[in-house]
């Protein structure tokens, strides 16, 4: 088991570094000079040159990369060009929001998806099944931003159950936090829950045809045990895969939702930082997302290993 996890850990290192190198190069190769942008239209070439030296931008690209790698290893990602504050202090503020948003969205997606998928599979070809399948297709087809606006219109503007936008951190109390996170999380999670519904349904229907389910029934085990333990154990595997992919997608794709709901998240921070040519902050943001994704993948692998003993020995 430990050996398996160690091997998995080694495999995620490229997941972290490849996107970093790409982002580093892309930023340097794109037009626009951060020193010039920061000093504004009135700056003299001398002032710009001085700032470039200060930021290390006059060094060759490979030298900048080496210095930056050294920074990562010493946990020093430099200062944000725009905020003039260490990147290591800025990132956690924004990352917390995005990670919480994704986590709540994922929980909602899994709960909704697994429940509907099971109900659907248990009532195969009955009206309730057809209803769920149709709703799921609809859910997959709707873009998140549209669903976000719909939620705001219904629950925030018309019913006034939730605030229209804004963010309260968890320190402000669970209810205050929940009120600001629920609608964004639902908007973000609804497509994923539709995907999971379909996955859960088809995987459950497959598993119910397996001979070992007939065995469990022939042994006299009650249907709740047969479904809840014998069928779910194997049927959950594809859903775990989808949940992992969904979480990754939501982490990176929360931008639109963060902007619509005015959440101070990583996605919004990144979009703004790219616009400002704030190299250190962009790199820090991408590094953070890569790291979270890598940890997430490791978690999924761990869940696989727990669910399926055959994987541990491979």
């Amino acid at each position, binding site marked *: 088991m430990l050996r398996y996890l160690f091997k998995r850990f080694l495999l995620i290192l490229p997941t972290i570094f490849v996107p970093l190198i790409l982002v580093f190069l892309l930023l340097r190769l794109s037009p626009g000079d951060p020193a010039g942008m920061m000093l504004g239209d009135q700056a003299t070439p001398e002032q710009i040159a001085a700032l470039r030296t200060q930021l290390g931008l006059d060094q060759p690209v490979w030298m900048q990369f080496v210095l930056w790698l050294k920074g990562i290893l010493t946990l020093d990602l430099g200062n944000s060009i725009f905020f003039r504050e260490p990147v290591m202090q800025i990132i956690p503020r924004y990352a917390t929001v995005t990670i919480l948003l994704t986590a709540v969205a994922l929980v909602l997606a899994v709960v909704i998806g697994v429940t509907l998928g099971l109900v659907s599979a248990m009532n195969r070809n009955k009206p309730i099944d057809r209803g769920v399948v149709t709703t799921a297709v609809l859910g997959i087809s709707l873009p998140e931003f549209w669903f976000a606006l719909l939620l705001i219109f219904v629950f925030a503007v018309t019913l006034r159950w939730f605030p229209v936008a804004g963010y309260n951190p968890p320190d402000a109390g669970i209810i205050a936090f929940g009120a600001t996170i629920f609608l964004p999380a639902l908007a973000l999670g609804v497509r994923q829950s539709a995907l999971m519904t379909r996955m859960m349904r088809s995987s459950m229907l497959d598993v119910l045809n*397996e*001979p*070992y389910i*007939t*065995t*469990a*029934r*022939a*042994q*006299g*085990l*009650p*249907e709740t*045990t047969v479904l809840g*333990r*014998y069928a779910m*154990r*194997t049927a959950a595997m594809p859903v775990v895969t989808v949940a992992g992919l969904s979480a990754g997608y939501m982490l990176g794709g929360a931008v639109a939702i963060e902007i619509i709901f005015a959440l101070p998240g990583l996605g919004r921070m990144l979009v703004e930082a790219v616009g400002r040519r704030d190299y250190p902050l962009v790199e820090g943001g991408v590094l953070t997302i890569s790291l979270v994704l890598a940890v997430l993948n490791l978690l999924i692998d761990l869940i696989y290993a727990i*669910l*399926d*003993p*055959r994987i541990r020995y491979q």
Partner: protein
Amino acid sequence: MSAHSAPMPAEIAVPPAQRRTVLEVENLSLSFRNADGLLPIVTDVSFSIRQGEAVALVGESGCGKSITASAIMGIAPENAVIGGRIVLNGQEISALGPKERRRLCGRHMGFIFQEPMTALHPTLSIGRQMTDTLKHNLGLSQSAATQRAAELLDRVGIPRARDILKGYVHELSGGMRQRVMIALAISCGPSLVIADEPTTALDVTIQAQVLDLLEDMRRELDLAMLFITHDLEVVGDFCDRAVVMYAGDVVERGESADITRRPSHPYARGLIDAVPAHDDGRTRLTPILGTVPPVGQWPEGCRFAPRCGRADEKCRTRPHLETLSHTDVRCWHPLEAGA
């Protein structure tokens, strides 16, 4: 439950004269309900099994053997419509609801499947699968169930039982898997065990071992055993009586020695002639021409007539199962005994 309480697997030798009837199947029929109405799969199956007796259900693939077994177990597909009577230990179980039927599974009836690799759960440990059953059916504690599971594995000839309990089905060989399956089937002391082609998926060398084990279990536990097979050698060596099925019907029924040595139904004869024999000097096998007609396309009258060398005009009407000198036969032109 019924007056009969589940006997714990212990060596209780009951003299043959006192052997009671464990299973009675009377005029069992089964159809699938689909969009066009009812599709008959099994039309008229009757037989009984006494304590300590092995009865074979014989026939080619598609004759309705396995679905008959699942109807007896109460695990037939949801769209199956079942007619006739099934009586287990004096209780008419065909009249019970699904929940009561499920309660009989494991405790009173055990099932051994053809392919243990897929019939055992791939990601639950063997111990877990056995203790789940023992805890639920016998109300044992976790430790008592584990203890009992280890004893059962020991009994079916699995070495290092405690280690195997922690293992998974993919770690075992084919023969070991089927031994686990057998241990599971007998774990809660059933009086009837249904084995659906239990050796078909195994290597030839292992087949004999598994058959020996089943034979031992039957003798030791005085089990009534329904043995579904297409292997007539197994029928002759292993079973007391045999029921030959063709296209959803019982076509011949009797002592297995009579059926394997001097069958009266042309289909039973055909099955025997299609088996390679070591001693009769034949150089070629005689196959039964054609195939079992698919469900829904059964001919009127005798269903075997299109493949039968003895068929004539009379076979266009449906024959009944009638008692001849030694077996019950459904045929207008039965073979003479010994023919």
